[in-house]
């Protein structure tokens, strides 16, 4: 089937198998920042934003993305400048192996877009679907708060 969706702001038309998942489609089309960790919605490594909302792309049938906007990690840095979340993850030491990082950052982006001033509990819940085995989440939680503050500042500054 042919589907048309905007990936990272660019309209694309793809040939997809009706039973294919969005994860498979995206990786096949070169968006390898979208990772496969389990294929079952348990780990969140495959997180992308679908119409602004973070989802496990391994569970989304490709056809569901027809006509939608998809944001992958590749689309986050505008013209080379890193997003505050990316900067904060780097500065806070929240990136170890980096495999969960794209998914985690996008889940955090969904959270901060809709809850710009989250409590610690809200941040924990916001990334509760993104498993990480390297960091123990400690620095990731902090990085998200640091980014949130920067993003609030940019909004009001």
């Amino acid at each position, binding site marked *: *089937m042919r589907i048309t969706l905007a990936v990272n702001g660019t309209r694309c038309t793809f040939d997809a*198998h*009706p*039973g*294919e*998942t969005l994860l*498979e489609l995206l990786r096949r089309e070169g968006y390898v920042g979208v990772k496969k960790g389990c294929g*079952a*919605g348990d780990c*969140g490594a495959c*997180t992308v934003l*679908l119409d602004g*909302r*973070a*989802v*496990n792309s*391994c*569970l*989304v*049938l*490709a*056809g*569901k993305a*027809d006509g939608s906007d998809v944001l992958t990690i590749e689309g986050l840095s505008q013209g080379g400048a890193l997003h505050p979340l990316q900067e904060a993850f780097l500065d806070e030491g929240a990136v170890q192996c980096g495999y969960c990082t794209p998914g985690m950052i996008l*889940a955090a982006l*969904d*959270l901060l877009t809709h809850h710009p001033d989250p409590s610690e509990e809200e941040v924990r*819940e*916001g990334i*509760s*679907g*993104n498993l990480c085995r390297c960091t123990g989440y400690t620095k990731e939680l902090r990085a998200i708060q640091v980014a949130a503050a920067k993003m609030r500042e940019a909004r009001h500054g």
Partner: protein
Amino acid sequence: MGLPGVKEFVRPETLDQALELLRQHGERAWLIGGGIDLVLFVPEDAQVVVDLGRLPLCYVQEKAGGFVIGATTPLREVLEDRSLEGYMAGVVPQMLHQVASPLLRNLATMGGTLVSANPWSDVITLFLALGAQVVLSDGKAQMIPLEKLYPARAHRGTILTEVHLPAPAAGSAAGFWKFGRTAFDVALLNAACLVRMAGGRCVEARLVLGGRPGLGTRVPLAEKALVGSDLGDATIDRAAEVARESADVRDDRRASGDWRRELVRVGVKKVLHEARGRLPGGER
């Protein structure tokens, strides 16, 4: 690849179109809301996937003191609905905060959740306790109590379009509890209740246990122990004990039946105390 057996993926825009597709493809058609359970369990007969996501069934509306939730509403939207926060002291968002993850809640729909009937479903356990009703349509719409939806196969050929939460009766309150292995987990056991008091006496009690590992079901003997009582500590303890003894709990790979039985007592006590604390007059 995800589902090699799927031959077609269609997205009807109206309920009539969706029903026509069901008629046309019969057993080969598979309805999805978010599609999560389809991708996870890959049923062999799912050859034509009918995505209901474009139907105008995404809403949470107040209606005569109760609420109507459209079948394609993502769970996240239900969770974040401001007016639903005021319903039964916020028991619905309280429950939804413990369901899966935000990623899954963005994709899973209310209709899909109710029809998939995963036995650990927290939504089903609570909604059974609240006395929810669902609207099924095969061209004609029909409203039935949620418990009559199961087994869902019995209603093949119809489409669930809405779930109705009844207007809270005076003197009623609800509670919900879930026990998992970690925070992001399905319930090893969940419990929900709705109690209604009149003149200092309990006149109605609905107590539901789910994840047993079976689907949410009422615990009539425990409910009986509550009705007519003052819902005091001793009564709650007794009801919890009756529930513990009579509940149908079994082993599965997540927990043993014996362990679940212990949890029954804890869960029933918790939800009853929580509901009692929400009654006008507060915790006694």
